[in-house]
């Protein structure tokens, strides 16, 4: 009887190959990095930009002229 050789099936590591833990870490680090660059860094830049040339007295005078204050007309 002729016997043909079959390729040996994968015997070990089936669950660990399914459980791509490295891919899981990469996805979660990617999420965190995305949040940092989409939300956290723009917020820091927005505050730095706002306060770079902020004149509080000018702001106060504009609010006073717009009658926003009760005690400073």
């Amino acid at each position, binding site marked *: 009887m002729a016997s043909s050789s079959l390729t040996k099936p994968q015997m070990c590591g*089936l*669950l660990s190959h*399914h*459980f*791509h833990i490295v*891919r*899981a*870490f990469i*996805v*979660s*680090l990617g*999420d*965190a990095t995305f*949040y*940092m660059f989409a*939300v*956290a860094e723009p*917020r*820091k830049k927005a*505050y730095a930009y706002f306060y770079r040339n902020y004149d*509080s007295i000018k702001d*106060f005078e504009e609010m006073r002229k717009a009658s926003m204050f*009760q*005690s400073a007309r």
Partner: protein
Amino acid sequence: MAYPMQLGFQDATSPIMEELLHFHDHTLMIVFLISSLVLYIIALMLTTKLTHVSTMDAQEVETIWTIMPAIILITIALPSLRILYMMDEINNPSLTVKTMGHQWYWSYEYTDYEDLTFDSYMIPTSELKPGELRLLEVDNRVVLPMEMTIRMLISSEDVLHSWAVPSLGLKTDAIPGR
């Protein structure tokens, strides 16, 4: 101030509140990292029929999931403590204002130079003029100088109240007798 469909904090108008905003971003980033990792692992676990039948111990993974949370907690604690100590900075206030909580209004006392006391009642929604802010407008507003350190002494005449200005990052409970 608050605005419709708001998800996060109000815009910061004091340095401490700015620090708190950035700290919140830092901590939320860590929360997303952990949550997405856990969700991904749950999804992987639910999409296989394979089972590990020869598990005897799990020394490696147990070491990792002890050390990594400790590192994450330290990463959260260090900026948190920095802001905590920043909030306790001793400075010399230029003005002292006392506020007493009542049911249901605040009274303010400016006694540094003269005796000035007034009550501050919320304007009911039915009496608001166009353009006024619901639940925020009062008849006599508390007036504070800008860009100065102010000492607020907060107490209550009856029950527990709480005095807060979210955009300055302030909130203190008004406790009767304290």
